């Protein structure tokens, strides 16, 4: 099927809804309130690092009522909610809830997908005739109850049911917390009529501005816009046609994207880091990036470094090599080549390392060069020990100073490394 179809004309998808979207409400904060009963009913914010420069990664509904938002800094949150309690993230707890949620979802359909740690989709296509005969709204209520029974009574989730993933997610965000909404071809227009453009997932300020320039100011106008206008005038790409289908309830988001990069970043713990400190942090970032590569059975040819300076300047550089590596020492050696070319005019505030040009690691191929083999065997031996006794039981001396400071934190968008994250020493 050609990706772009001029003069595409599609009706609204009249198929009965088969997609169920589950969204855990304020996931990390709710899990913390479930775990610590004394925090229930109190404004709570979860942060990755309990420091003065911390920012909120999840806020409880009590905190949200006071105006605290995700991404807000410590100082701003303090002004809005002086009684706000901040706690640090605890990944094993969220991992447990994540696994419970997957277990519940899998009991209904083999076709499930996790969009992130706290969001999942169940595709009921092909299961309705024999297994899940009850209305999806009833199944949605049952999932809510099972979450309370199997995790704890404080757990709440939003459920959205619709013919495609986008509308199901929209439905799940209509009544927070603990809502359940269904969007069908019958109530699509009335549902969209109550929303703003930016209420739609994927439409933020920039896309809103693009739509506005084409005279589209409301979701209903967006729905009524022809595919050609969206593709040629608004988005200037096939994305416009995707939006045309998406809004009409046709599926365009059932796609898996391959991993293109693997990396890590760290906001410096010192205001004026010395050369030694910088190299120690860089070494640790490289080691953990390499761990992620090996965890996924990948090796990388390219390395990319990104530095943010105290004056707001950024510097980045990438370098592509002929061979692919996945060992911590190799990645660090290559990162150093790039890192040593950085400008030294100001203090580094943040550094990020990422590997690109990924390919499957060829661990079965023995090199003709003894030195390379030795390094590969050493990495393998270290991995075996760390797998047995916890990550960083054996680590490079150059990373020791950073080991306790750079904590692997919750990955928001992806859950690919959750198992690795939870295997701590």
């Amino acid at each position, binding site marked *: 099927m050609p990706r772009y179809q001029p003069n595409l004309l599609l009706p609204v998808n009249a198929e009965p809804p088969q997609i169920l979207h589950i969204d855990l409400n304020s996931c990390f904060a709710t899990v913390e309130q479930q775990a610590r009963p004394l925090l229930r009913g109190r404004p709570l914010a979860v942060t990755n690092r309990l420091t003065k420069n911390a920012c909120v990664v999840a806020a409880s509904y009590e905190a949200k009522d006071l105006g605290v938002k995700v991404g807000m800094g410590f100082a701003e949150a303090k002004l809005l909610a002086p009684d706000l309690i901040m706690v640090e993230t605890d990944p094993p707890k969220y991992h447990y809830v994540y696994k419970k949620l997957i277990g519940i979802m899998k009991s209904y359909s083999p076709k499930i997908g996790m969009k992130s740690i706290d969001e999942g989709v169940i595709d009921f296509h092909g299961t309705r005739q024999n297994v899940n005969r009850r209305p999806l709204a009833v199944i949605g209520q049952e999932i809510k109850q099972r979450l309370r029974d199997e995790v704890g009574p404080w757990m709440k989730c939003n459920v959205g049911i619709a013919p495609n993933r986008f509308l199901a997610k929209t439905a799940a965000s209509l009544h927070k917390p603990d809502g359940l909404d269904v969007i069908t071809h019958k109530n699509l227009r009335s549902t969209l009529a109550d929303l703003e453009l930016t209420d739609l997932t994927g439409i933020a300020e920039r896309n809103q501005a693009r739509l506005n320039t084409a005279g589209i100011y409301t979701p209903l106008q967006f729905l009524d816009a022809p595919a050609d206008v969206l593709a040629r005038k608004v988005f200037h790409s096939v994305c416009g046609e995707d939006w045309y289908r998406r809004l009409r309830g046709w599926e365009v988001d059932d796609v898996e994207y391959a991993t293109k990069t693997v990396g890590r970043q760290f906001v410096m713990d010192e205001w004026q880091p010395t050369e030694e400190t910088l190299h120690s942090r860089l070494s640790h970032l490289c080691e953990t990036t390499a761990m992620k590569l090996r965890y996924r059975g990948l090796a990388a040819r390219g390395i990319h470094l990104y530095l943010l300076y105290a004056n707001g300047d950024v510097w980045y550089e990438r370098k592509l090599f002929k061979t692919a590596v996945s060992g911590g020492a190799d990645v660090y050696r290559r990162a150093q080549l790039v890192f040593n070319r950085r400008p030294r005019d100001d203090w580094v505030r943040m550094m990020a390392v990422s590997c690109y040009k990924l390919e499957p690691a060829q661990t079965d191929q023995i090199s003709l060069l003894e030195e390379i083999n030795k390094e590969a065997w050493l990495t393998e031996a270290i991995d075996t020990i760390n797998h047995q006794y916890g990550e960083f039981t054996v680590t490079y001396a150059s990373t020791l100073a950073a080991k306790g400071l750079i904590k692997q934190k919750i990955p928001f968008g992806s859950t690919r490394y959750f198992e690795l994250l939870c295997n701590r*020493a």
Partner: protein
Amino acid sequence: MDQSTQINKDVNIVAFYFKNTSRRLRCFPKRMELDGKRVDFTETGLVHPTKKGQRTIHVFDMTDGSADYRLEFDAQELSWKLIAITDNHYAPISTQFAPAS
């Protein structure tokens, strides 16, 4: 800057209660002895497994109504450890990071 008081001490769990969840009979701590004092738990917050290498540790977040307790059960050594206690007065953000007077 964690608000919890880190204890990290072996403790005795002297009473348990049982609950039938998801068709499995599960066991939870009911009473703990710590430095000669008894603590009776009134509610179980969350029980989740975590790993230390290949060792499975079961973490029990419990409360006695006036403080939250984090207990760990080592499934290999069959031992209980009290990791941390946080009292009811979780310090609000306004008092965290305040300069020491």
